[in-house]
């Protein structure tokens, strides 16, 4: 195959664009898609400070690299999840990336800072480790952003992530979740704005961006995510994409452009009922926020075990 732009040898084909690209034009394609996402959705204004949620995986490192390359003022935040060798390798990749590019990487360790890790939280709650992990990330990223004056939290959610979450929300008609599923969640009291600048790029593209840019990322999949529902949705969507290129993009972009607004009212009702958590002061709909309830459950389990 030849590059769509320069007709040189291609390194990656993207069937939904009916195109292939050489290295340089593929990297430009990625930067253009991110800039378009930022501009179309008004994600980041000039001069704003961005906190990139960095896991050490392909998406977050590609995102950080692209944002800095586009001239945005972006620091990273790595959250230590305590998932054995996987977390060790992820932290190593994130630190090496920041060190080589002289970027600022903040770090928070769940166990040191909050007294639990993801495996212990999953055991204490008897629920999916991904649930405890996601809850912890949302809380800590927001707390660090608010405490340190960042305007925006940027996460590495890509087109495949958004398509899988959308499929899950539609299959169960989670209308409040559908109202909150958008490339931009506006700031509100106690919450920084959250943006997903990679939502126009598939995960094959973010992985290729890293390979072609020489970014060493954590290739191994999280051992605790194995067999989860999200991966099952991705498998189904990829089967669909293989038969019908562009299906995932049409699904997600169509939702963002034509359907999301129909669900915002339901999500808005929840927002109006927010108050400060009795324990940590974060905005919540109840007396105590979900993060503090999780910490309390893990802590009481540890006491019982003694």
């Amino acid at each position, binding site marked *: *195959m030849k590059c769509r732009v320069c007709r040189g040898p*291609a*390194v*990656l*084909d993207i*069937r939904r664009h009916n195109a*292939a690209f050489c*290295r340089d034009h593929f990297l430009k394609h990625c930067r253009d898609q991110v800039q378009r996402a930022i501009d179309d959705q008004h994600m980041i204004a000039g001069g704003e400070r961005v906190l990139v949620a960095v*896991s050490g*995986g*392909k*998406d977050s490192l590609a995102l950080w690299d692209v944002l800095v390359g586009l001239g945005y003022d972006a620091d990273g935040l790595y959250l230590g999840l305590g998932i054995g060798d996987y977390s060790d390798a992820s932290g190593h990749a994130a630190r090496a990336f920041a060190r080589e590019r002289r970027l600022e990487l903040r770090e928070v360790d769940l166990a040191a800072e909050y007294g639990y890790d993801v495996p212990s939280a999953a055991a204490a709650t008897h629920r*999916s480790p*991904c*649930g405890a*992990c*996601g809850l912890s990330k949302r809380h800590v990223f927001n707390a660090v952003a608010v405490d340190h004056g960042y305007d925006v939290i940027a996460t590495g959610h890509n087109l*495949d*992530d958004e398509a*899988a*979450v959308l499929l899950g929300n539609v299959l169960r008609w989670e209308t409040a979740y559908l109202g909150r599923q958008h490339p931009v969640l506006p700031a509100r009291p106690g919450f920084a704005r959250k943006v997903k600048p990679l939502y126009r790029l*598939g*995960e*094959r593209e*973010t*992985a*290729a961006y890293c*390979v*072609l840019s020489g970014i060493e990322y954590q*290739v191994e*999949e*999280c051992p605790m*995510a*194995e067999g*989860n529902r*999200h*991966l099952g949705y*991705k*498998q189904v969507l*990829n*089967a669909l*994409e*293989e038969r019908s290129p562009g299906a995932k993009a049409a699904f997600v972009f169509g939702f963002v452009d034509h359907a999301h607004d129909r669900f915002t009212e339901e999500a808005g009702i929840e927002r109006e009922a927010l108050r400060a958590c009795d324990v940590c002061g974060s905005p919540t709909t109840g007396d105590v926020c979900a993060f503090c309830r999780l910490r309390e459950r893990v802590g009481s389990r540890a006491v019982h075990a003694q």
Partner: protein
Amino acid sequence: MVLRNPRRELEIPGPSTVEALLERLDVNPESVLVIQGDTLVTRDARLADTDVVEIRPVTSGGAE
């Protein structure tokens, strides 16, 4: 042909293509990158018997 990560050897009468290799392994091309030696390659790339090929999964699943 030698496949990396995990390393295994596969008898494939060559020359073959990336697309044929993935089909034989029942791997969806949408879910992987294919790296021939140290170069990323497209579906139509030709693969020789002596090639070392990495089929790198790109699917991550860390969401609820």
